[in-house]
Structure formats: structure tokens, C-alpha cells
């Protein structure tokens, strides 16, 4: 089956991509109702339940974004973390998950119909989960979390994919980033008698295609092409490495990945702890837009920001305190990166992608870039989200579009790469 829908079920936002053809790029689903997101594809992972006298009612996604909890209203926020671990999720959490998936199917009906998917209950669905949620998996069995999510999807009227119902986020992210959503298969050959993935075409947008060409024409003696994606998200920093065999263009690339519990939320917490109480309280009470505006100023632009009540954050001595927090966070991620490289014995790193919200902060971005440079792993191309394009004597610098910041896991999860029947 050529069609698939991938649900990147994030703690704060859910992103959805669909594959409509084995040889066409997968679009990410956008919708006008997601007006809080400039790119219109981040669906708040939120559910709210009212148990007032007029009956049980639910609100989800953007409609639950301003819902405050009260005696008769329960708001489910960041509940994904409760699905991990050995303990079974509480009944209320399970109910909220199923209801959310039900609503998601209805919500997506209109935008999906615009890309040709009319009935989502018959389209195979795949869900992205964090790297550590697969713990407890034995051989071909699913971990309790993976099993729970599949059951919830099924109960909500989705059709979990038979072959690959679950993918881990770092893996789907690196595929999404490196293919930019592209899918490519070759017609059934005489030997295999089935369609097979054309890796060369699928990954032609990255440096792999050039490396393969150079190797095949004798211009280069390299035998592998190695790519690293370092994605700093809200809760975790994900490391993923993909390695291509340049001696065999049909060989599927190998992916290794790891997640480190170090996200921007931790940076926020460390900054709030060091602010005076009045400013910390004002920061905590900000709505999402105001919080993002402030974080952009104090982290990315290294300047001060005025909060309501004429409170200025990030001026004078606070600038230094905030910078210390950012530096400390960058060092933590840098240490995680070094560990990942060492553990996986990565001796060559031709391309590096620095993505996720954390890499929008120049100090962190620059620290990681320097770290990669120090490792001296033959890096020739660095892709980054920041607009601070730099020329460097030993490698090229490429600025990624905003879609790479948040939509790649969904795009990658919908990729034909994860269907081994086409390998």
C-alpha cells in the first residue's frame, strides 16, 4: 500500500504527515485552525474534559489551549510522559488518549481530503515515540508504551500499520531531515519482482548523492557517507546518525540514535531559578506567545526583554546569569554529543544537521559547531537553523528552512524507508 499517515505524537504538539505515493514527497498536514502556529502544522497535544451537570463534554487541540482546570474541568497537558515506563497508564489518561486520537482523526479529515486521503480509518497509521519509550521491548514484541499507543489508535478508529506501526523520533527525524520528505522506489526488477526503495533518488537532496557520484567516478576514495542530526527539542536532545555505503548504492543506510533528557524546558527552569522572585513569577504567568517572544530575546538575541509591569529581564547582571545558564546547557548537550560519537565509534562525519528550538540559540549552535570542528571528523557541510550563515575554510554552511525545526519527525515517519518490504 502506497499511502500512510504518520502521527508525530509530541508532548506539547502533534504533527502529522502523509505519504500519498511511493514516488512523491510526503506533505505535512497544515490547517487554518492552527492559527497559533506560524507554520500551521503544530496541533496542541491537549485534551479537556468537562463533567458539569449538562453532561460530559470534551475539547481538544487548539480549542483546549485556553482551557483552565477547575473542579469540574480536567485538562490533560503533557500527559504523554505518563504513558512511558512499566506502570500502566491511569484510566483517565487512557481515556484522554483515545478521545484525543478520535478527535484528531475528525480534525484531520478536511485537510487530509485536500491531499487525496478521503477516509482516514482505512489509511495505515504510524506513530512516532521517543527513543526511550521502546525500552522493555523484547525481540519483535512491542514495549508496553508502543503497545498501548497502538491499542489507543485502534480504539479511536485508526488503522495501525501492520508492518511498522511505531518508529522512534530520532530515526524518523533524521530520515525526514535528510530526505525532506522525499520518497522514491524503483519499478519491480527481474530479480526481486517487487518495487524497491531507490535510496540514491530518495536521498539525492543531501550530500550523499554527490559523495556517491564522486566515489563511483573515482574522484573520491571514500567508502561511506556519514550524517549526524542533533535535534534539541523542548524535553530531549536527540542524536541520530545515518551511514551510507558508497560501494553499494542499493544497500539501505544504517541508523543509530539516542535521546538525552536535556531540552529547552530545562534551560528555562534553570533561568527562572536565578531570576528575582517577581520576574520569575511574571515569566511563569506569561502566555505562550509572550513566553516565546521573551525567550527569543534573552536566548537567541542575547538582549533584554520588558515584561508587563515594566519588569526588564536580561539586562545588566542578569545578562551574565542567563548566559551562564545557556553556556551550562550547551556544555551538557556537547558532552552528550561526544558520548554518542564515542559509543557508536563514529570516525567520520561528512554532514551535520543542527536542528530543533535549542539550535536557534546562537551560543548553543556555535558551541556544538565548534565541538564538531574540534573532533576533526572530515566534516564538509554543516546545516543549521540560524540565519548566521558563516563561511568556514574547511566546510560549507547551509541554512535550513523553518520546517526542519519541527516537522521532520512526521515527514520521516511517513517515509517509505521504514517499510522493509521495499528494501
Amino acid at each position, binding site marked *: 500500500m502506497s499511502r500512510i499517515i504518520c502521527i508525530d505524537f509530541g508532548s506539547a504538539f502533534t504533527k502529522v504527515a502523509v505519504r500519498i505515493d511511493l514516488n512523491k514527497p510526503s506533505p505535512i498536514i497544515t490547517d487554518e485552525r492552527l492559527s497559533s502556529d506560524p507554520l500551521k502544522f503544530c496541533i496542541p497535544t491537549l485534551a479537556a474534559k468537562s463533567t458539569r451537570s449538562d453532561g460530559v463534554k470534551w475539547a481538544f487541540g487548539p480549542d483546549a489551549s485556553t*482551557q483552565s482546570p477547575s473542579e469540574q*474541568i480536567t485538562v490533560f497537558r503533557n500527559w504523554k510522559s505518563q504513558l512511558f515506563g512499566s506502570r500502566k497508564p491511569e484510566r483517565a489518561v487512557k481515556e484522554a488518549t483515545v478521545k484525543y486520537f478520535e478527535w484528531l482523526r475528525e480534525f484531520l479529515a478536511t485537510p487530509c481530503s485536500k491531499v487525496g486521503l478521503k477516509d482516514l480509518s482505512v489509511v495505515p497509521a504510524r506513530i512516532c515515540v521517543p527513543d526511550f519509550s521502546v525500552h522493555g521491548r523484547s525481540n519483535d514484541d512491542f514495549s508496553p508504551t508502543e503497545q498501548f499507543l497502538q491499542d489507543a489508535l485502534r480504539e479511536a478508529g485508526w488503522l495501525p500499520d501492520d508492518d511498522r506501526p511505531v518508529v522512534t523520533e530520532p530515526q524518523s527525524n533524521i530520515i525526514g531531515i535528510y530526505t525532506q520528505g522525499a520518497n522514491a522506489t524503483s519499478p519491480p526488477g527481474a530479480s526481486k519482482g517487487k518495487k524497491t526503495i531507490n535510496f540514491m533518488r530518495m536521498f539525492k537532496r543531501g550530500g550523499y548523492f554527490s559523495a556517491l557520484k564522486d566515489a563511483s567516478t573515482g574522484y573520491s576514495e571514500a567508502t561511506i557517507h556519514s550524517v549526524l542530526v542533533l535535534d534539541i527539542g523542548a524535553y530531549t536532545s536527540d542524536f541520530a546518525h545515518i551511514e551510507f555505503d558508497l560501494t553499494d548504492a542499493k544497500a539501505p543506510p544504517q541508523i543509530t540514535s539516542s535521546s538525552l533528557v536535556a531540552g529547552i524546558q530545562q534551560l528555562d527552569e534553570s533561568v527562572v531559578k536565578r531570576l528575582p522572585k517577581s520576574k520569575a513569577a511574571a515569566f511563569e504567568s506569561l502566555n505562550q506567545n509572550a513566553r516565546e517572544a521573551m525567550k527569543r530575546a534573552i536566548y537567541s538575541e542575547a538582549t533584554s526583554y520588558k515584561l508587563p509591569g515594566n519588569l526588564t529581564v536580561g539586562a545588566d547582571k542578569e545578562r551574565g546569569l542567563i548566559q551562564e545558564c545557556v553556556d551550562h546547557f550547551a556544555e551538557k548537550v556537547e558532552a552528550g554529543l561526544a558520548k554518542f560519537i564515542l559509543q557508536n565509534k563514529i570516525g567520520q562525519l561528512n554532514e551535520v544537521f543542527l536542528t530543533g528550538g535549542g539550535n536557534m540559540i546562537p551560543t548553543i549552535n556555535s558551541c556544538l559547531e565548534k565541538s564538531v570542528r574540534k573532533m576533526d571528523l572530515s566534516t564538509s557541510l554543516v546545516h543549521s537553523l540560524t540565519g548566521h550563515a558563516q563561511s568556514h575554510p574547511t566546510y560549507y554552511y547551509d541554512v535550513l528552512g523553518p520546517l526542519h525545526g519541527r516537522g521532520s519527525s512526521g515527514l520521516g515517519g511517513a517515509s517509505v524507508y521504514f517499510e522493509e518490504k521495499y528494501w
Partner: protein
Amino acid sequence: MTKTPPKSPDQILLEVLERALINSTETRLIALGKKPDGAGLFATDKGANKTVIERCLGLQGDSLLQIVRTEEVSVGKKTQVHSFATITPGGVDHLFSKLPVERRASVAVAALDAASKSIAVLEHLIDSIVKRRDELLSVVESLVQRFSSSLEAMQDSAAQLAVRRDRIKTQLAKEPLPATSLNATPERAPMRRPDTDAEVSFRQRAAQELVFAWQESAREARVPIEAALHNIGAEPIGEYGDKTKFVGRLHESRSPVFQDDSVEVERPGWILRDDAGGYLLTHALVKPYLP
């Protein structure tokens, strides 16, 4: 022509004291010129006069005259000091002890007449002053009364104005503000989306900061910001006092409300719109409303 023998210091002293007693008020100590208003107890301060002056001012014992006032007069570069004196009780005793008996009565009568005249003058002056004081007191009392009345009236007005201000504020929070530009903003075609992501991002950011400022401003100060928001491509979500259904993605409330509940718009929200879609800048603030 017979030459008049010079007066003795005792004679001069008695004459000076007698004049001082009869003058009753202060008299210039040393004469200044020959004009009547420059007349003094002593013609000069030289010769025998010098000894008598020292005696009178108590430089050699009890004072018989006392300096009650001095004047400084500048003539060219020179400054002269003029003293004015009256007789002391000791001076009166000395005078009557030294005067011949036959003159004592006449001097006493003359002094009494002068004193009586002075007293009469002073009494008249006192009467005038008292009369003027009473008049002034009356005027001051009247002014104080008028000011008190004005003050009370002003305090009343201020209190009434404060009440009115609070009522207006309450009303403003409830009712559409005539000064707001929101109701008067005509429908318009959506703006063209900027060509670059950087420009889209900048427009969103600028509009967002304008909305923060708009939220922090008093209602009457919002109109110019609303104009700026309109010009940058933002549109209001709802209008003050609108009755509608609660939609979580567009509305927020301080009171517990749920999706589809009836609500009233307390403060409109803002969305930045272009021909490629909308970006929510802030939710409209609503409160529960019972139809």
C-alpha cells in the same frame, strides 16, 4: 557787648534732661544742621558736651538718657550714624533733684502736657489701629469663610468626579467604547503575504509586540495602537460586548467556561491575516454570559 560765659557741664546736663523730659518722645542726640527737623539734645558732641554725653549715656555711672534708635545716613562715601534718645527714669530723678524748687512745678506741668499730648496722639493711633484691625479681621474672616465654602465645594466636586470617573470606567469595561476604532474599521481584502520568510516573521513579531502594548494600555489609549495594528495587517477577533459561543482557539476566560458556552467579549483578540492565512496574536478575553 557783654560776652556770655560758657555753660558748665551741670548746666548743660540739666538743660538737656529738661528738653528730653518735655519732648517726651525720642529726640535726636546730636543736632544735624540748623533746620528745625535736625534739632538735637546737644548742638555738638565736642568740648563740654562730650563729657555730658558720656555722663548721660552712663559711661561713668547710671545712664540718664538711653539710645532708642540709630540711623545710618550715607553722604558720598561717608556713612554717618545718628542716634535718638529718651530720658531714663534715673534721668528724671536726677533732673528733679537738681532743678531749683521754684522750677520743678513748671517743668513737671510742661512735661505732663507734652506727655498727655503724646498719649492722646498714641491713643488716637491705637484707636485707629484697633478700628483697622477690626475691619481687617472682619475681611479676613469673610475671606476665610469664602475659602472654606469654596474648599468644601471643591471637595464635593472632586468626590462627585471620582464617583463619576469610577462609574465611567466600569461602564467602559462593559460597553463598547465610542472612541474605539474597531467598530468603525471597514472590511478589507487580506494583505498580500510578504515574499520572504524573514519578512513574514518580522511582521508577526512587530504585530505581536504591538498587541502586548495594546493589552497593557488603558482603553482610551488603544485607538492609535489599533490603527497601527490595522496597518500592519491585524484584525480584531470579536468586538466589545459581542455575545457569542466560547471557542477555545479564539477565546480565553478568567472564569470557568467550556467549549460552546455562551460568552460575552470583554476585550477583543487579534489575528494577523494575509492572503495565505492567519496568525493568532492574542485570544479574545470573554466572560460567561447567560442569555
